[in-house]
């Protein structure tokens, strides 16, 4: 979404809220239904695979606990980034934005490693229902994290060139809303896929 979107029209706000923030909150509502449908599909097919490998053969809870911790820490970085930009401290703003994206990339790296490992162990999309539902659900989440990382890096580069300043704190806030949402979704997935295996 553009930084200047609605600049000419948004002089008037009936609720006093920013239109872009309402847009992001409503979009997140729609995303809840998307992940809700995917999670339901995963749960409906839990234990329905006719051939292995089964979840209990493959899922590495300690490893994913570490990457989960990394992703949660990225949310902390995001909070610090927004706070820095809001008080006009662009030096730390840039550092925290970059750190958020970096931790997101570490999480994605962990996911790539995990997917690779599963494929080597003989689990692909086609192997059984577990393979299909697992890769689709965690893959969709991973795609959301990847979009978030690209978004954050864009903000970082804009800040680097002086085009993102304290005046654009709302842009960072909206990216933050998305980022925290993606994190919350992971907490649900971590619980339902890994902890309840």
């Amino acid at each position, binding site marked *: *979404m553009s930084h200047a979107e609605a600049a000419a029209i948004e002089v*008037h706000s009936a609720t006093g809220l920013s239109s872009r923030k309402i847009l992001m909150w409503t979009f997140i509502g729609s995303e809840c239904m998307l992940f809700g449908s995917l999670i339901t599909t995963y749960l409906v097919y839990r234990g329905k695979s006719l051939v292995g490998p089964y979840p209990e053969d493959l899922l590495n809870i300690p490893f994913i606990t570490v990457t989960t911790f990394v992703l949660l820490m990225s949310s902390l970085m995001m909070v610090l980034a927004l706070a820095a930009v809001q008080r006009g401290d662009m030096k730390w703003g840039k550092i925290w934005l970059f750190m958020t994206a970096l931790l997101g990339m570490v999480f994605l790296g962990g996911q790539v490693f995990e997917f690779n490992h599963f494929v080597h162990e003989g689990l692909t999309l086609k192997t059984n229902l577990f393979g299909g539902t697992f890769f689709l659900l965690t893959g969709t989440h991973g795609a959301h994290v990847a979009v978030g990382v690209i978004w954050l890096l864009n903000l970082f580069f804009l800040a680097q060139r002086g085009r993102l300043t304290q005046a654009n704190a709302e842009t960072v806030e909206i990216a933050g809303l998305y980022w925290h949402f993606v994190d919350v979704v992971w907490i649900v997935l971590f619980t339902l896929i890994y902890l309840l295996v």
Partner: protein
Amino acid sequence: MSATGARAAEGGSHSHEGTYSGGLWSWITTVDHKRIGVMYGLSAFFFFLMGGLEALLIRLQLGSPESTLIDPDLYNQLFTMHGTTMVFLAIMPLSAAFFNFIVPLQIGARDVAFPRLNAFSFWLFFLAALFMNASFLFGGAPDAGWFGYANLTSTQYSPGMRIDFWVLGLMVLGVSSIAAALNFIVTIINLRAEGMTFMRMPLFTWMTLITSFLLVIAFPAITVGLVLLMFDRMFGTLFFNPLAGGDVLLWQHLFWIFGHPEVYILLLPGLGVVSEIIPVFSRKPLFGYAFVVYSGILIAFLGFGVWAHHMFAVGLGPVANTVFSATTMLIAIPTGVKIFNWIATLWGGSLKMWTPLYFSLGFISMFIIGGLSGVMHASAAADLQQTDTYFIVAHIHYVLFGGVMFALFAGMYYWIPKITGRMLSDRLGKLHFWIMLVSFNVTFFPQHFLGLHGMPRRTFTYESGLGFEAMNLMSTVGSMVLGASMLIFLWNVLRMLRKGEPAGANPWEGSTLEWSTASPPPHYNFKVLPTVHSRDPLWAEDTGDSMHPDDPSVPEPHMPGPSFFPLLTAIGIIVMAAGALTTTLPVVFVGVGVLLFGVYGWALQPLEH
């Protein structure tokens, strides 16, 4: 370049304050909600005629028993594309045309909250509609029904690209619908005029808001269903493969969790249109405004709890069937409330018997018939008898044609003078109404009996001697007249464009804000944003001094500049879909490239330029 300056400078012969100018390019790059509304309307009407032609071919085939006019394969394509086209490419975008043109005017805003996102929604819809219909030229159209039940859609039973056209087209249409709905939610919540509280909003705006919430909540479910299906077809996953433990009913659940709210997505805008027209043509405020609003919300809410009534015949068991029967019957209550409110509004009013009111009354009566047959198959026991027969075909056409299309035609007759600044002929409008009403009933009323006598739907022919001949012939004759009645409407529109009388700002003496500005409205809608103090601001006496939509002493407001990037972004998505369709990775990458270029161009282009 400054948008308003350039528009005024390029205006040529008919350039005066607030008018548009420029040729095709200015339409392609427009971000103006009124032009986008017009484009939605024209393309939706084109696809409405196309879906109508498909229906006429179906009726020709069924006009006589054991007909060989159309082979079974083409028949399957025709009923699939008829349903898909009417739902996604005709009724939804026709409603979107009104959302776009009317809602910003009704709430006293200059445009939607995100004008370029709005252009993107339109172009994505338009390209996806062309994409899906292109299937007719490449090996045949989708042929598994508009509901695409698994495992009819598996590669085993549907090899080739037909189903892929359908899957990818619907996914892209979903993105377009969600983007448009998000935009309208924000617009209605945030761009209302000074003083327009939620309980002072016009009913059409209310129904647009509710419909938009339904869209953003319902579409993700079908998107997930379509993704599962696409993975099954393209990557060999096992989601809908019973041999590997997959469950074909999962598709039906995901489809109808979307599909039933979708019925209300189609219906609620029509209820909104009629709720606008009846008070204006009765010269009375709407009876029980709050009841009409709350029953709209209740319909939307209950709409998410009834999906399995489409699945009574699959064997969900008595508990599920009973629950879904009960919730389905409950929906009749808020719907009935609305009907009583409309009738109470008409009661004692000084009725202006012009075309929009004719179509609104046609809507009420036909919709009641469709609602009654709907309550009949809300009972699971009765539904087992009726499911997959022509009884259901009759029901959905009474609701969607007798209901929604009559309401949308009412809306067209009501608002086209605002859109073009000229009046349609009332005489031709009434002629259109009577022919459409009679031929509609001749077409669809016999189908109730055909269905109760056991004629199955989606079957390309029937044997002679079963007692189906006469009623099928009647239905076919009716459908031809129904199709021809559209020509009267088209003739009326052409006549209006050539020599229609000027409409003036408020030809119907309407009460809502869209009638306070010129017809057609200047591109900025209102020079001075209005302030409202009541539900019917143009009828209230205390608002006379707060409406200055065209004060000449006020300079023209600045409006967002045109942009090519929304179309470019939409093209990127369609190229990706074409790449996925033909499973050629390079094409997908080209699409991703165009998409990224479009998104970055969009994000970095200032709104005013």
